[in-house]
């Protein structure tokens, strides 16, 4: 069993108020005796941690604050998400990274895989071997055995036993959460949508940082209720004629909200997110009947990320969402040096051209230096719709 971290970092006193509060909130969880697991990716089967009574939290950082620290070891020309996340680990500036008793990564993109080797020197790290094919029996068997290996690691590190019953219960709870978040974002199929794309993103992104399942699901239910009630009362935060945009590409949140802002400031509205922050992880339900480990493994392996080859599930979802949300245009956000999404953007462009849906690719990083360029591109795109 590992020893769980409860004391605050040495640099704590140098933090501003908001960050101190963030640390104190996680410390409270730790003091209650709960273990914390940090993960980077939508492929991580959170049901395992939930079944073990652990708190899990996303460690994908969304700010450029720690990039200079990360670049002491990592190359400059690397995806900002990887650099920023690593930077928070080396500077003890993120409460989730700092307090994580176990960090879980997958063999997704090359940048992350090699970063994990460095991170393993600083954190208790477990890497899942994720295959890049979702359909062969061998890939499925490998991934199932990896999910099982993760369960065993969690049992060993935290001194718990995870039964099938516990896993089934966790699957049901996570399904409920997925169903509610899907119900929430599907409100934007209304014309005009009842919320702006920025608000939708903030709710979806924020839901990753709520740690009590019951409170979280109640909050989402309340949000759905309030949005519906306001709409029925005649509130229209978005104008009827606003062009409807779907966002695809790399994960979003934090500083990359800038992409949503420039689109909406140009007079359009973001109705759907096909990325990891949105539909990619909420769209499907995990099967509840049968062997829970197999169900969890099969469910997660089908996520349509550009690291898969080929990657048909992304296109199935993208096409379906474009119809369901009556989309007028698609904007793809690729982070600098995210090779898999950047290369796949050419396939996305062709896919959408065949469907007569205008497409714009925006490459950006975690700085705010490119807001002018982004707003000119987004503005011109909205003007041409």
């Amino acid at each position, binding site marked *: 069993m590992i020893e769980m971290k409860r004391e605050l970092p040495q640099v704590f006193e140098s933090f501003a108020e908001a960050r101190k509060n963030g640390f104190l909130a996680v410390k409270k969880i730790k003091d209650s005796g709960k273990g914390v697991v940090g993960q980077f990716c939508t492929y991580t089967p959170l049901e395992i941690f939930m079944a073990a009574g652990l708190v899990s939290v996303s460690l994908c950082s969304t700010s450029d604050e720690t990039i200079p620290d990360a670049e002491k070891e990592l190359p400059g020309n690397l995806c900002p998400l990887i650099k920023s996340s690593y930077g928070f680990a080396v500077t003890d500036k993120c409460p989730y990274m700092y307090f994580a008793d176990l960090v879980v990564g997958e063999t997704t993109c090359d940048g992350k895989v090699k970063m994990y080797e460095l991170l393993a020197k600083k954190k208790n790290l477990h890497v899942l071997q994720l295959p890049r094919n979702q359909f062969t029996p061998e890939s499925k068997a490998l991934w199932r055995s990896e999910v099982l290996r993760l369960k065993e690691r969690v049992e060993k590190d935290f001194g718990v036993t995870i039964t099938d019953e516990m896993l089934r219960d966790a699957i049901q709870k996570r399904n409920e959460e997925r169903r509610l978040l899907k119900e929430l974002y599907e409100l934007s199929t209304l014309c005009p949508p009842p919320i702006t794309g920025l608000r939708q993103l903030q709710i979806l992104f924020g839901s990753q940082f709520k740690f009590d399942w019951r409170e979280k699901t109640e909050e989402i239910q309340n949000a759905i209720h309030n949005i519906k009630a306001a709409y029925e009362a005649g509130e229209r935060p978005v104008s009827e004629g606003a062009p409807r945009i779907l966002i695809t590409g790399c994960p979003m949140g934090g500083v990359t909200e800038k992409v949503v802002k420039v689109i909406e400031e140009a007079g359009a509205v973001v109705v759907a997110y096909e990325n990891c922050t949105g539909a990619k992880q909420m769209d499907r339900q995990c099967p509840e009947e049968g062997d829970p480990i197999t169900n969890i493994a099969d469910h997660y392996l089908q996520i349509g990320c550009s690291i898969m080859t080929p990657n048909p599930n992304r296109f199935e979802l993208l096409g379906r969402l474009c119809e369901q949300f009556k989309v007028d245009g698609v904007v793809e956000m690729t982070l600098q040096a995210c090779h898999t999404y950047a290369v796949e953007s050419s396939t996305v462009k062709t896919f959408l051209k065949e469907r007569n849906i205008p497409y714009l690719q925006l*490459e950006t990083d975690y700085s705010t230096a490119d807001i002018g360029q982004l707003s*000119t591109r987004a*503005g*011109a795109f909205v*003007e041409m719709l």
Partner: protein
Amino acid sequence: MEQITIGIDCGSAACKGILLKGGRIAASCVKPTGWNPKETARTVLEDLLQQENRTDEGIRVAATGYGRVGIDFAHKKITEITCHAAGADYLLPEVRTIIDIGGQDSKVISVENGKVVSFQMNDKCAAGTGRFLEMSAHRMGVDLSDFPKLLEEGKCCSLSSMCAVFADSEIVSLLAAGKSREEIAGGIIQSVVTRVMALAGRIGIESPILLTGGLAQFEGLRNVLEQQTGCPVNVSHYSRYAGAIGAALKA
């Protein structure tokens, strides 16, 4: 009385203004943008009004270009991409491709019936822009306005860097190695066109093509563009005003 509209295209290097009267160009004005785009735009507006002996009463003004955000007297703000498309269609009806080489960015716009179909702009980088050309000219001790003269004989040496900063040091080395300014100037133009062609390759080029932006009057640039695209490249007397014309049309 004929309707008057004004378009102001406030770019990083120059601020261009056009006054349309009954749909025809009645006045034009261009000034260096300088450090205060808002004030420069105001003087361009006043200059245009003065040429027509008018006050701004009842005249609609649209602003475009990177400086548009600060132009508070404009009734409308439109991106330079949409405006270039409209303006280019005015100058060359049925234009399909616009190549615009501006001060801080270059772009290729694919157009149909004056409307944007798709576009590509260069990234946060000065490669293939007017600024790149200006820096290179400065390094060779040539005024930008004299640059076209260096291109007259069509001499050229190869310049391997597209990055403005690296190209700058490459030019120093070439000068030290005894290359003539004419040869280096040819290489610089090749480099600009190579960058533009990379953008064009992503959306495809169709004829007719109109070259716009501050460098449109460079005869040497146009020749190299024609060689590389394999198509005639059109230039209008008002090419650098394309954005302003588009803005005035949409005001």
